[in-house]
């Protein structure tokens, strides 16, 4: 049966909200939970020790816990924190930068969606370096995935980002602080006011992107629930659901219903669409511009 993963929390929520969120996840049907700060090293509502406590809670509830690394490593302090994460000794890590792969020194890890695994040669290399699972790049199509799946190394699991606003870009600049005319070093933790990010529309009112600190996301929400059968046929092992401030538990339940066969893909896609902060999209899966919604299997 396909596994359900709750991806790392990409936003900056108050501590109490984060803890309440993971208690709900612990009680739900997800199999895997990715934890930790992947966007900005300045965020500190939860410290490393707090994340480990959440990790133990989830492990106690029977979840596979993976600690996700920061995607953009800039300062020597970032490298030090990464080294500590890689050597934590209790939980596997999701490497979101090649520096994390280097620090794992052959120990098992998950190759995250920001490692740029676009072809079989790179996938084989990461397997040799210890990757036991890889997360498909967001902009990859099903057609491209099928080529990689055909040459997938033995024992390598494939995970697909299946639900959520897509993290599309990273910068040294903080766009949320910029919106308030604040420098990044004195951002006053502006992200905390935007639990699903800060939306950026075109000048004719089309929702386009979402500012999330140094990360830029899609405004439209990737929703592959309707493609469940295609995902299964392509040999995908894990579906990732990216946390949003509301309704994540119901969304996880919809995906659980999909794998149990109690809800049809088109129905699940429609049910989930009503729970999203913005319109759904699925263009990338169909080899189209990411913001498009193609709907049923191509």
């Amino acid at each position, binding site marked *: 049966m396909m596994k359900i993963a709750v991806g790392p929390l990409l936003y900056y929520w108050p501590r109490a909200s984060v803890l309440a969120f993971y208690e709900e996840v612990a009680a739900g049907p997800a199999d895997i939970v990715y934890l930790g700060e992947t966007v900005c090293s300045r965020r500190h509502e939860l410290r490393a020790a707090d994340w480990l406590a959440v990790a133990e809670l989830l492990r106690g509830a029977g979840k596979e816990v993976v600690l996700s690394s920061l995607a953009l490593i800039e300062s020597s302090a970032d*490298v030090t924190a990464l*080294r500590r994460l890689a050597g934590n000794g209790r939980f596997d890590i999701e490497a979101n930068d*090649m520096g994390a792969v280097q620090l794992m020194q052959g120990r098992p890890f998950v190759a995250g969606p920001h490692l740029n695994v676009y072809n*079989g040669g790179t996938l084989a290399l990461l397997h040799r370096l210890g990757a036991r699972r890889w997360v498909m790049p967001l*902009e990859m199509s099903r057609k491209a995935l099928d080529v990689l799946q055909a040459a997938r190394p033995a024992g390598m699991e494939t995970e697909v980002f299946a639900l959520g606003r897509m993290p599309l870009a*990273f910068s040294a*600049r903080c766009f949320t602080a910029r*919106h308030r005319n604040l420098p990044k070093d004195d951002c006053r933790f502006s992200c905390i006011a935007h639990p699903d990010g800060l939306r950026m529309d075109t000048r004719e009112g089309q929702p386009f992107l979402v500012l999330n600190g140094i990360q830029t996301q899609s405004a439209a929400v990737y929703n592959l629930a309707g493609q469940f059968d295609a995902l299964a046929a392509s040999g995908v092992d894990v579906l990732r659901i990216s946390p949003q401030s509301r309704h994540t538990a119901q969304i996880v339940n919809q995906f659980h219903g999909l794998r149990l066969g109690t809800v049809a893909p088109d129905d699940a896609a429609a049910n989930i669409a009503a729970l999203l902060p913005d319109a759904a999209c699925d263009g990338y899966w169909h080899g189209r511009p990411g913001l498009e919604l193609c709907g049923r299997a191509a």
Partner: protein
Amino acid sequence: MSESISPSNHDAGPFELVCPAGSLPALKAAVDNGADCVYLGFRDATNARNFAGLNFDAAAIAQGIAYARARGRKVLLALNTYPQPGMEALWRGAIERAHGAGVDAVILADPGLMRFAAENFPELRLHLSVQGSATNVEAIALYRRQFGIARAVLPRVLSLAQVEHVVANTDVEIEVFGFGSLCVMVEGRCALSSYATGESPNTHGVCSPARAVRWEQGPRGLESRLNGVLIDRYGEHEHASYPTLCKGRFDVADETYYAIEEPASLNTLELLPRLLEVGVAAVKIEGRQRSPAYVAQVTRVWRAAIDAARANAARYTVKPDWMTALNALAEGQQHTLGAYHRAWK
């Protein structure tokens, strides 16, 4: 042969001026005006400036290499997109062609392709492209250990202090961007272009591709669109820029502004003595899509600046006529120090 400016020799370590060439005339312009190295790409999806009418076929590369070699300069070949599944043969073939043509180094981003190059052409010098997104010493160490890279090009996101830290903690040569169009996002980690158009630097070697651009005169002004998405709208006296999607004006919470980045060019001329001091090995000029005249102008200014800085770093100042020359070429006629300068962030 036209009048030629040669790099000066100094006792300090090498500090190379790496200039763009989108065509043979641009390559000659770079060499004639003092580039130590020129970088170029094949005419296909294997490089990150895959624009119509640009880049080199086999004959042009052979001529370019001969021209540069005769004048003691180097030619680097960018193969810095990510081979798409099932199409690896195109990229591997490009490595073979590059090796056969005798380039001085290939600039790669994809680990799988690096492995292919390292295993099949061990004598071929490898540079890690900016598209490889290595921003820290551990990432660079991985590419060094796995593939023996000789040089890494840093993404345009690090401060000068962070660049210094990287240089001090690796034996890989470090190349940084000095001038040209500014990517506000970490190179190799940006899918905004494919989100809007289906094509990105990683997958197709393009950002905000020209085929997706539409200009329309609307009732509220001149509008630029990318695959239908309104990127900017210009008043009568405003200077219109190419609609690179991160450089438009958008609405955020009822405020209209350059929410991501102004259309400005990176210009680090004033940082040159510091770049030399911290041990950066090379400075790169962006712009393989630009004209030979542009390449000539920028190369000439940077050659003069580097020679002045190396001759006497303490007395180095940015000359007004250098800035005048570069400002005339800058995107939106604006310059920024980008991430090298903390306040930019």
